[in-house]
């Protein structure tokens, strides 16, 4: 009882709009990038191979699934907290590999450091989203609303999504 105190409990339209817009802005980074990796799959695999990553085709497929698949789920808000956590883990893995600024020529260092730091900040936003959940304007939120009577009956007010 009383856990998850800031998960959709003090909802207002402005809060729901903020979190929906926030999810859309994050998805807008991942979905086009995942789509581009899919349509340019061989180029994606070649780029991954150039960074010394093993099994570049498999890695490229994981990247497409992560960016396109999880990006779409983030936008829709389906199992959002797991999806956000999955994307955060994805960023944690790829960032040191592709933006390891300590390892690149001086001319690229500043740009890669900015990318590195921005990726960590995006990961931070995903963690916050994972903590708080997607709000009511989401598949999760609609399912929660449908389950609320059942939850009230069982006295379980915890997050069910």
């Amino acid at each position, binding site marked *: 009882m009383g856990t998850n105190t800031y998960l959709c409990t003090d909802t207002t339209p402005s809060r729901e709009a903020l979190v929906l817009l926030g999810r859309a802005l994050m*998805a807008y980074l991942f979905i086009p990038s995942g789509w581009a990796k899919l349509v340019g799959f061989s180029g994606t695999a070649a780029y991954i191979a150039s960074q010394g990553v093993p099994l570049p085709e498999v890695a490229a497929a994981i990247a497409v699934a992560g960016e396109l698949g999880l990006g779409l789920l983030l936008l829709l808000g389906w199992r959002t907290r797991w999806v956000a956590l999955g994307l955060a883990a994805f960023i944690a893995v790829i960032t040191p590999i592709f933006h390891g600024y300590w390892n690149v020529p001086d001319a690229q260092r500043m740009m890669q450091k900015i990318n590195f730091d921005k990726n960590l900040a995006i990961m931070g936003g995903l963690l916050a989203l994972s903590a708080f959940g997607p709000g009511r304007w989401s598949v999760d939120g609609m399912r929660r609303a449908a389950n609320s009577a059942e939850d009230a009956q069982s006295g379980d007010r915890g997050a069910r999504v």
Partner: protein
Amino acid sequence: MTLSPATQNLFALVGRALIALLFIPSGIGKITGFDGTVRYITAANLPMPEVAAAIGIFVEVVLALLLLVGWQTRWVALAIAVYCIVLAFGFHHYWDMPAAQLVAQKFNFYKNLAIAGGLLSIAAWGAGAWSVDSMRARPQPAMV
């Protein structure tokens, strides 16, 4: 998915810290390299470069520290989100950049928007329990 309150608070704190750590060193760099910052802003054809640099320092140092400690977190996160979006359009308008910069600036543009997106979820729900806001144990001001 059920997260324990401690996990929620941990994620919220680590999330705030990761965002703050993008801004605070960058803001300190803008103080120590103030003249260079002003030149960079001037080169981007933005108005009042000294004022803009001062606003940048305020957001990146002061507001980011407030985000980290979680004071007035929802307003602070909203302000930093707006700042990210303004910077995306002011400095990373990749669509009219030379080809050599286009890809790099496109990443910067979309990454800025994604960072703003994460900040908006903090603006929606607040900082979590491990924050000054929560310790003050007063409801945060209602937002609209």
